[in-house]
Every structure is written in C-alpha cells, then in structure tokens.
C-alpha cells in the first residue's frame, strides 16, 4: 500500500515530519515522528533496509555522544564516569537532540527512497514541472553507475593483464590508481559525445511540450494521507503561535 502512494505524498510527509517538530520545539515531537516513520516503514515491509543508512550515520552519532558528553562547552552536571573519563548530562542531552534530528531525517526520507522506484520519482518531478532535461540527467545517473562499475572490472582485467599489481603496500595501491581510474573517466567522457548525439537525433532538444508514456496515478489513500499531514502541519503552526503569544 505504501509503495502505491504517489511520490508527492511521500515528499509532503518528509516536509511535515521535519518542519513540525521544529515548530513545536519539543524532543517528544521528533521522537513521535520517528515512531510514525517506523510504523509506516514496517507496513511497507522495508524497515530492515534502513539498517545500512543507520549504520552509516550511527557511527558518527556515537562519536558525537562521546565527544559532546565529555567536552561540550556547557557541561556542568556529571551524568556518570567511566574510569577517569567523566560524561556530563548537558553534553549527552545535546547529543541526543542531534541524534533524534538525524534519525528523523533518515527515517522520513527512507519512506520515499525505499518504497519508490528512482525512475518514478524523477518522472513525478518532471510531471511537477522539473525541466525534462534535468530529469534526464537524474534518471541516467541511476543507469550509468552500474555501467561504469562494469567497465571498471574490465579495466582492472586489462591492466592486470599487462602485469600491473593492484594489491600490496600503500605505494603499490597509489600507483595502481591512475591506470585504473583514467580509462574509466576517459571512456565515460568520450561516450558522452556519442550519447549526446543519440539523444539529439531523438528530438531531445525539441521545444515542443513533452508528453509521457506513463500516467501518474493518485489513489484515494493519497488524499487521506495528505489531509492528515496538512492538518498536523497547521496544528503545529497553531501551537507555535500560541507559545509565541504567551
């Protein structure tokens, strides 16, 4: 069901999930959105796919907690000590705030990223008014990277065939860098010429308004989902105004 939502709705969700807590200004709000995201991701059966992203940022967040816990400039209240290393409450809370924000961003984006095909996403952007030329650029990146990785394997074979070593000391590895990367880069730049021509002869430069093979599909769920989101946004703006008026 989540997979069928219009990418637009998911983009609105990202927007609301990150703006509303900022307006409300409470860690609980951020935490709630993380929870909502987790629920949505679970329904969409893609929660496990967030693991690599979390791992990526988790390491940084861990060091943030350690460094801020020990050295944060407002540190006064001791939280606990590990041997001679003292952790402070202020620093840890500061790190918690950061962690919540980062995780919230990660989770809300994951909904869009993990349940939408990149090509659909780009197509939506183009329907929404992104220049088709830029749309082309974005979707071709998704295709070009696997192709370049393939080329890279061939190049590695070709250079090893000429007796080049790719493993060993740092010096050997640095020496291997140029023979491996230049052909990939050259190959991809040289093929830009042919590809540009191939696009041109298929009317890529046309001033005509473009049409689309695939139609956009918006479901009833989209309307409900969007309505709820916008309600949350309005309520949080209300909340902000109330606090401000006090």
């Amino acid at each position: 069901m989540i997979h069928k939502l219009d990418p637009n709705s998911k983009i609105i969700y990202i927007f609301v999930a990150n703006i509303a807590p900022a307006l409300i200004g409470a860690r609980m709000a951020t935490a709630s959105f993380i929870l909502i995201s987790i629920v949505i991701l679970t329904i969409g059966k893609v929660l496990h796919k967030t693991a690599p992203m979390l791992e990526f940022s988790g390491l940084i967040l861990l060091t943030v907690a350690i460094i801020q816990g020990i050295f944060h400039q407002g540190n006064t209240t001791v939280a606990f000590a590990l041997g001679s290393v003292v952790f402070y409450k202020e620093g840890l809370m500061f790190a918690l705030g950061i962690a919540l924000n980062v995780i919230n961003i990660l989770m809300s984006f994951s909904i869009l990223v993990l349940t939408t095909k990149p090509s659909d996403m780009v197509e939506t952007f183009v329907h929404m008014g992104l220049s088709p030329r830029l749309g082309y650029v974005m979707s071709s990146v998704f295709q070009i990277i696997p192709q370049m990785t393939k080329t890279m394997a061939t190049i590695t074979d070709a250079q090893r065939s000429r007796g080049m070593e790719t493993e060993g000391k740092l010096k050997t590895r640095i020496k291997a860098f140029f023979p491996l990367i230049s052909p990939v880069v050259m190959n991809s730049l040289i093929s830009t010429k042919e590809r540009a021509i191939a696009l041109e002869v298929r009317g890529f430069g046309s001033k005509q308004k473009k049409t689309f093979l695939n139609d956009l599909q918006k479901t009833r769920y989209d309307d409900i989902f969007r309505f709820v989101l916008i309600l949350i946004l309005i309520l949080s703006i209300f909340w902000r105004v109330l606090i401000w008026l006090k």
Partner: protein
Amino acid sequence: MAKIVAEHLKYKYPLSEKLALYDISFTIEPGEFIGIIGENNAGKSTLCQAMVGIVPNFYKGAYGGKVLIGDMEIAKSNISDICKKVGIVFQNPFNQVTGCKLTVYEEVAFGLENMGLPRSEMIDRIDYSLKLLDIYKYKDRNPFDLSGGQMQRMAIASIIAMRPEVIILDEPTSQLDPQGSEEVFRAVQNLSREGITIIMVEHKMEKIAEYSDRVMLLHEGKLIAFETPEKIFSRDDLDCYGVTAPAYTRICKSLGIKNKKTGFYPVTLEETKSLIGFSEKERCPYDQN
C-alpha cells in the same frame, strides 16, 4: 516522400585544419537503397551526420553549400525537427541507449515523448516498430540487458517509431556477431521494402553489393563516384581508395568473367554463381534475370 539533395557541401570540424567534406553534390531519390564505402576517415560518418544536421548544428565548425531533405534545408533547421524526417543509427549500440529508461518499451518511447505525441499514438507506434524489428518479446527488459544485435534492433525500432522517411545506418553491424549482423541486415531489408530511403555505411562489401541500388565511394572527403555497385566494384583503382571489391567480384576479375548484359563484373553470389556455372557447364545461355 522527400528527395535528398546535396549541393557543394563543404565542412570542417572545429579546431581542424582540413576539410572533412569537400564540395560534395548528389541527389538521392525517394525509396533508394544507398551504400557508402571508403576507408576510415574518408568522411563517411561526417556525410551521414550532415544529412541529419549533427553536422553542423551539434559540432559547429565551418560549413558551406547546402543539404536539402525535400524542402527542408538542414543547416538552417533544428535537429529536433530534422529527426522527424531523417533517422540515424550508429555503430556502437551501447552508446545509443538513452540511459534514462528502464525498459525497452520506454526506451522506444523516448523520441515520441520528445515529439509530444499523445499517449495512444505512442503505444501504436511502439508496438508496430517493436514487432517490425522482432523484439516485441523483449519489451519489458532493461535495455542494457539485451545482446548487441537486440540492442541495435532496439535502436532501429526507436528511430522507426518516429516515422522518418529516410534512415541512415552508420556501420550498424561492425560490433555485432554474425547472427546479430544477420538480424540487423534482415531488418534493414524489411524497411527498404516498406519504401523507406536507406543510406548505409558498411565495410562488408558483399552486403553493400547485395542490397544497394547505388554506391557512393568517398575518399579524403571527396565524392569519387556515385554509381551502381557493378560499376563501382568493377573499377581498377579501388585499391587507391583503401577499399576492396566483394570476394565474388575479385574472383571474376581474376577469371575475366563479365556480365555481358551490363559489361561489368558481377558483384553478388547469385550473379557470380550463374556466370561461373554457365561457363563451366557450357549449358544454355545465361538467363538475364
């Protein structure tokens, strides 16, 4: 249907000292099958690209004379308009894939989307051209997962879907295996039967001889001759232009066997077979057809 007329066409690539095309003039009638031959750097690809406007509109550089497709003057038109009349297929099937579509079907749609066609018409045209090229069964595959021959046929289908009157093929089979080449040549023959004007650059002289109504011989940017294959391949000076006649013609030259009706050496397997077969068996006179 449109005639192609070149008048005193001259062209020089940017940063280059030498003319790539030097004073080329010719007329191609609608529905003709034209072969272009010549050694590397003779100007074959440049000439092809001058008929779709890549020369000069994409490369810039210096240009003289003119090329007309019907009443459209190439140098003064946008490539995006020219491509509705003239399509071109290149050597490397891989670099012709747009790289932004995930299925063969969508890939063929690319040009039609740019032309702004309504969706239903797009579907009609895509189905038609995929079937014509016999790749309808691959319509949901990723373009990059096709074999070379299939990819090249997809490239041709993408052009056919745009309904051009002229199709230019620049060494369409040089990177394919024998089966892939055969698939492409068969597809090209089908197109020719549909009445589309075909212009094909090819190093396989036997194929040029078999299919072409007329052959252009280019050398160092100049048009040396534009004649029937028999006349072109019967020349004694082909060596100077870095090309060689089909194996059949070379055999008949060595044996001194000419087709008495045309006065030229034979260029295809069939013609050679009947001439040699005749002289060997000394049976009834060579059937003129």
